[in-house]
């Protein structure tokens, strides 16, 4: 089925939470009658869920002390002189 691109635009507006109520109604009505667009929309939502499911990772231990040790010496001395 060759649907107008406007429905894909509506899907992205919806995902960005920027769709107007009118366009949301148009999108919902279209999805009811178009299996292709429905699966396109499901796949987009699944993609987002998958990306968001990647667990949050943490910086390695001693990250902060490693950064502090690499700061330029010049500035360190300013701190010591105070």
């Amino acid at each position, binding site marked *: 089925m060759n649907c107008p691109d406007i429905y894909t635009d509506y899907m992205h507006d919806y995902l960005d939470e920027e769709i107007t109520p009118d366009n949301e109604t148009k999108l919902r009505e279209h999805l009811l009658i178009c299996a292709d667009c429905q699966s396109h929309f499901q*796949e987009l939502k699944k993609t987002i869920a998958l990306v968001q*499911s990647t667990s949050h990772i943490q*910086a390695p231990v001693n*990250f902060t002390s490693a950064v502090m040790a690499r700061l330029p010496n010049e*500035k360190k001395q300013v701190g010591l002189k105070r």
Partner: protein
Amino acid sequence: MEALVKKRILQVLKGDQDAYGEIVELYKDKVYQISYRMLGNRHEAEDIAQEAFIRAFINIHSFNIDLKFSTWLFRIATNLCIDRIRKKKPDYYLDAEVAGTDGLNMYSQIPSKTDMPEKEIESLELEETIQSEILKLPEKYRTVIVLKYIEELSLIEISKILNLPIGTVKTRIHRGREALRKQLRHV
């Protein structure tokens, strides 16, 4: 949090280096995460994340205190990641032979998963799949997808971090989502 950060920045500007340690503690996980998702390699991610904090420290006098510090810091980090991606040579690839190892490639350096419970292996494999699909995205789409869906930043913040009009950010997110959809549809 921003108020506390600003207080610490003023201390750093007066020469108190320890105050900078607190700023690093507050943002280290986010900066490391951006770097890791952009580069896909823990060692490189650590290197770039450290570099981002060092550059921020060196240039802290040029930070406009009325702006959000994290926006400025994330801009430094994403720029460093993009530079690194552009400089990357094919010999970074996992199937490249490691010099002097007689046929061993980087895959052989990845720890074996045999001691792990089935479920953990599955979720780890899924995560590796998702990460590798993110890494296949061209860098301009990868950046916005990481900032939007892993760092959970708003379109406005992303546009400030990347110094791009919001319309451009939106277009890139749309294209990034479409590219990932095609890559991940059979997962």
